[in-house]
């Protein structure tokens, strides 16, 4: 189950919405039908309305309900995001939404000598079902869950009860922050590390994994391109060749803003993976917040191109450039 599946849309009813941590709500959906149970690591796409526009968001499936046909999601209200989470938090019991079947981009491989699951914050949603599956299978695993404070940690009590000693909570407020090199060291040779968390955490783990000379394929992660090093802020984008200039507000992507002002851009995955919406950077005032997984770290550092579906620009001050005063973020690009 690795190839890309055709999305099949269907109706789903909202069965329940409840607070499971600070700013995190669990949303339980009952789809019209389900071809098969959601496998660990899967997500659904859901139709949302944001600023009066129909759009699509992806959320990991935390698990199946007791009757076997409900899908549970966990959604963190991200005030600085593009508005999908606000729509999700406003859902009410009985409401109808459109979703796809569970889609799998983050499959769990069985039969490895050892596993480490590492969740940061709301990234826990992608790993809950994996932890359950590994426990049922009697696998050797460790489950690391980090956050700034315990009150932000969705599902934490259930997880501790379920996984006991295998659960390793890392809480900044308690002074037990995640130690990335130790995390990497703790993955047995031939074992796999599954990561879901904010971009800085993923970047740090990727770097440590490479530095330790571990096999790249044994580090597993997925991306929705929805978080970066900086909170989104508005910036100006210019395409001199096409005579276009527009402001990318904090809640739309650069790709969306450019499409809206008439640029004909190529794209496919819209989550920073495929590399098709890449644009050339000609001039930059500020710092690029690369949120894609297509370019390597070395390519990111050159800053001569970016993936317009997820990556953004922040002002020099936000980006921490020395001598930065109040000038706004702007980027000049060319497109294919």
């Amino acid at each position, binding site marked *: 189950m690795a*190839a*890309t*599946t*055709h999305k099949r*849309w269907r109706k789903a009813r909202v069965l329940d919405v409840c607070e499971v941590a600070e700013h995190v709500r669990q949303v339980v959906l009952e789809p019209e039908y389900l071809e098969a149970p959601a496998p660990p690591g899967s997500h659904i796409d*859901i*139709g*949302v*309305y944001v600023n009066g*526009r*129909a*759009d*699509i968001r992806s959320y990991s499936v935390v698990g199946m309900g007791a009757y076997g046909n409900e899908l549970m999601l966990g959604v963190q209200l991200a005030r600085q995001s593009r508005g999908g989470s606000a729509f999700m938090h406003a859902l009410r019991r009985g409401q*109808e*939404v*459109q979703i796809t079947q569970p889609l799998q981009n983050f499959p769990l491989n069985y039969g490895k000598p050892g596993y480490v699951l590492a969740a940061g914050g709301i990234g826990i949603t992608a790993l809950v079902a994996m932890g359950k599956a590994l426990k049922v299978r009697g696998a050797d695993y460790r489950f690391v869950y980090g956050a700034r404070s315990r009150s932000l940690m969705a599902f934490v009590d259930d997880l501790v009860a379920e996984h006991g000693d295998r659960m390793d909570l890392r809480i900044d407020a308690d002074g037990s922050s995640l130690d990335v090199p130790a995390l990497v060291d703790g993955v047995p040779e031939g074992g796999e590390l599954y990561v879901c968390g904010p971009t800085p955490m993923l970047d740090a783990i990727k770097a440590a994994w490479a530095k330790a000379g571990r096999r790249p394929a044994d580090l597993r992660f997925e991306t929705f391109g929805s978080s970066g090093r900086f909170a989104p802020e508005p910036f100006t984008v210019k395409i001199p060749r096409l005579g*276009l*200039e*527009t*402001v990318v507000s904090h809640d739309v992507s650069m790709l969306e803003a450019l499409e*809206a*002002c*008439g640029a*004909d851009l*190529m*794209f*496919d*995955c819209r989550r920073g993976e*495929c*590399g*098709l919406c*890449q644009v050339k950077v000609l001039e930059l005032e500020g710092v690029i917040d690369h949120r894609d997984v*297509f370019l390597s770290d070395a390519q990111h550092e050159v800053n001569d191109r970016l993936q317009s579906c997820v990556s953004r620009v922040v002002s020099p001050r936000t980006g921490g450039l020395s001598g930065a005063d109040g000038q706004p973020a702007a980027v000049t690009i060319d497109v*294919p």
Partner: protein
Amino acid sequence: MSTPLPSTSAAQTGHATFRHFPLNAWFAAAWDHEVGRNLLAKTIAGKPIVMYRTTKGRAVALADACWHRLSPLSMGKLRGEDEIMCGYHGICYDADGRATFMPAQETINPSATVHSYPVVEKYRYVWVWTGDPALADESLVPDLHMNDSPDWAGDGKTIHVNCSYQLIIDNLMDLTHEQFVHGSSIGHESLSESDFEVTHDERTVTVTKWMHGIEPPPFWKRNLQDRFPDYEGLVDRWQIITYTAPSTVTIDVGVAKAGTGAPEGDRSQGVTGTVINTMTPETDSTCFYLWAFARDWCLDKQVITTRLREGVSGVFFEDEVMLEAQQRGIEANPGYDFYNLNIDAGSMWTRRVVQRLIDAERGTDVEETTERAGNAAVAMTAVTEAANAAGANDTPNGTGLAAEVEEGVARHREQPTVGLMGRGL
């Protein structure tokens, strides 16, 4: 409908099942020498067609189905200077598809006609227009002049391939596959290592790749030595792929002695070839692939023409095996889709261009507007203008509804036929 899908039909064209073709297009139905005083039956873009030549030499393409009871006219025979006779009941048609003889009656039914497809002979191919004959414009035949220009020498063949024509376009728009499919002839590791540049306009897509100072692959070393027999050094290699909608790809390929200025335009120390490819859909999952290789060196050497034709033929066989297997793979995995990579950018653009042509001729082009909708929209503009002006801050470049409608109407006036096609035939 509450379907939440945004209007991203352009993105859908990246799907594995995308294999549709516009009809308002010239498709190369055959090489010129294949059409003569015999009946040649072929399915072109899903339409059964019979081709022949009149005694005066005009190439004719008629619907291969008798007006009477749909028997294939290709089972009949030629009659007189320009007529074809149905093999079943003897009804005869002229080159324009009009009946000239009916059995057992003294009159000819006025409705007795078969469609005569517009035909153009150009660049050694017989091109057939499968769509609305009113739109058949000879200037839309893709420029393949290298196929019969005195400045070039070459030859080619036709392959019947059991895959969608689009898979061949995908294959030609991304030549990184050469390293893996054609390792023994034209493959080179620099192919997948070098960056490429993609540009496009309404009907064309161009992918440019340069490889500087590389060891020439065997095929190109030999070609360069035709012209510079003693040269053993490194080369600068180029591949400039140009797609012309809906299904023609020319590839400007070659090598020059490294550092002699080829990237800057001086190819005097090199050899240039053009791979001429034009794909003609037969059905949704089969096609005719007409190709030729033309060169600009040693024009008087037939032995080189033959060597290149047979060499390229071998290379393309490797593609054929892979593409037919890919088509079977797509059909064996109906629930699955392509994952498109950055290297697929060229092919993704060609798919978007084709989808827009199809949308335009079906009248489903969301960017175009029909006359009725256009007139209604003009009347509405006054009403909506005020509202849009008020919200202008939200749409910094005047891309509000009014602007969109105005643009659509202007475009419609320029090309009144667009959006009205896809009927009849």
